[in-house]
């Protein structure tokens, strides 16, 4: 069933997400601080022990991955928040309005992508201040490209969250979701170790993780190179996989949301 889109409705749902995000200052601070601890402890602590990965320091290697972590968690939970909208009734207010469900969910996805990306930008700044990136003219362009990549990564994962949130009916399944979906996606994304340093079966698992390509792309943007395993065109491969993943997740999320009962 084709549903007409309403720009106004998409915009207003997006606006709501932004307003709610901006008001929850404590949440912003705590999640930025959490990532900072990760960077400090692993970057300086473990980094002092390991040295570096390839030609960059361990902190530099880690930074895009930790930014990716913030994006992943932020976006999936933002998508899953359709459960809360339903639980606390606000969903009905949106569904009884003369706008299509597709408009509502696209607004939700854009809003989730925007807020999670703001989170990612904050982390990028923090990592920069900690000295994770070499300040060159190329970095200015890289940082800009990284923001585009962040929106790309998060939109797909908000879609995944919406798909999950529309399928699950109670939020007690939250714990399961976190343990069995988000953590594996994070752990296999190559945040802590390079893919060419692990055994073959492990490599396959990592290559099946869409988040792996997100982190790869962020490394290309911020460090100027990705894993040798994917070769010099690794960024193009990663971009392709990510776009495909996005299209799939947004389609599935929209479909499941449109079908869900009030």
């Amino acid at each position, binding site marked *: 069933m084709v549903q007409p889109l309403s720009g106004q409705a998409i915009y207003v749902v997006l606006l709501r997400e932004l*307003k709610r995000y901006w008001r929850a200052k404590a949440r912003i601070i705590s999640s930025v601080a959490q990532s900072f601890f990760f960077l400090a402890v692993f970057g300086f602590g473990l980094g002092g022990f390991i040295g570096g990965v390839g030609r960059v320091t361990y902190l530099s290697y880690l930074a895009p991955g930790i930014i990716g972590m913030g994006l992943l968690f932020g976006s999936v939970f933002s998508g899953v928040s359709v459960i809360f909208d339903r639980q606390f009734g606000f969903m009905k207010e949106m569904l009884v309005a003369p706008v299509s469900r597709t408009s509502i969910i696209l607004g939700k996805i854009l809003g989730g992508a925007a807020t999670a990306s703001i989170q990612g930008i904050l982390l990028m700044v923090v990592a920069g201040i900690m000295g994770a990136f070499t300040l060159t003219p190329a970095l200015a362009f890289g940082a800009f490209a990284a923001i585009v990549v962040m929106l790309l990564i998060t939109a797909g994962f908000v879609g995944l969250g919406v798909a999950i949130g529309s399928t699950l009916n109670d939020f007690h399944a939250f714990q399961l979701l976190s343990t069995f979906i988000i953590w594996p996606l994070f752990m296999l994304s190559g945040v802590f170790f390079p893919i060419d340093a692990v055994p073959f079966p492990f490599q396959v698992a990592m290559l099946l993780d869409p988040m792996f390509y997100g982190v790869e792309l962020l490394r290309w943007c911020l460090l100027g190179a990705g894993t040798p395993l994917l070769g010099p065109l690794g960024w193009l491969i990663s971009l392709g996989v990510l776009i495909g993943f996005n299209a799939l997740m947004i389609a599935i999320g929209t479909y499941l949301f449109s079908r869900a009962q009030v």
Partner: protein
Amino acid sequence: MSRNSIIEVDALTKVFNRQVRAVDGIDFDVEEGEILGFLGPNGAGKTTTLNMLSTLLKPTSGTATVNGYDIIEEPDAVRRSIGYVFQDPTLDLELTGRENLDFHGRLYGLNKDVREQRVDEILQLVQLADRADNLVKTYSGGMKRRLEIARGLLHHPKVLFLDEPTLGLDPQTRRSIWAHIQQLNQQKQVTIILTTHYTEEADYLCGRILIIDFGKIVALDTPDNLKARLEGDVVSLTFKDPEMIAKVRPLFERKDWVRHVHIVSSSNDHAAAGEMMNMMNVMRGMDVSSGVMGRVGSEGAIGKRAPRQIEKMLSTGPVEGSPASRRLILLVDDGGHRIPSIVKLVDEAGVDLESVELHKPTLDDVFISVTGRNIRDEQGSFMEMIRRHRIIRQARGQRVPG
């Protein structure tokens, strides 16, 4: 004077899970400008009906028109014609009152100037102008309800649906919400359909009342006409021993001055809570042993309700394991003069009477006479009870854990 129908309902039916007829082929018209009340116990089909009229639920069969638009063929036009204030709170607590209204205006495509002007106007009308820029989570239950009603009117709908508008509010706040509803009905010329299980609310507010039970319309008339159906006086007898009711009942049925005899399942007393749990156990036991699919609450809630036969048994007579009725309701001519004979009859039968009460028929009595049950008996499922409890707590402005 003939008035235009703004809603025409034609054999509207909703069946859940292929066997639960939550709404069972109802027909009625709503006149433009009236306040129509759906009166019925929980799970009677009130909310399901509203959800179909508002296009949130697709009917299994039958249809309806709202403001001339078909609910199946033209859902968007229907949605533009209606405002819906849901039973559960649907405000965004993290936004201010003004932002909630602004959000609504945008969803309904109002442009900036119209939006700002209407938001200010409606905030004045429901007396929230001074708190408009506070977060909704700081509002009291009554304020939230007023804001929701205001929001439902922002896009100038022709019809406003109010689902249990005063559930969980204290009597004083309830009065003020009633005053607001009447004022809006008159000033905005908006047709209002409200659901309630408070008879006094229906009596006070509604021009006409539609009594719905097990998905069927059992009465539709003005409150006065409904009460006038019960000619005579209501005498309510409470017995010490529930067993005795069966013994006494035939005595009255034989008298020509007794128009009706009803046994009412006990309710508002101290045993109500225990009775509720007991009923649930009985229902569950029967569900399992008879393999009957539980009746799903009208709201499509998770809660299972007992199949109709079981409910009937529970409400009209003692069921093994459930506390029985202690009250007998008689509709008699010239009640005041009959009380001595009534007491004498009971005495001669050797039954202990606890109390006798005489009053003019109220809507409660009308409800009992058409459904055989007391509307005050919360015959919802256990889950339904918990859900309502949550709504009530939220309405009272407490944070709900989780």
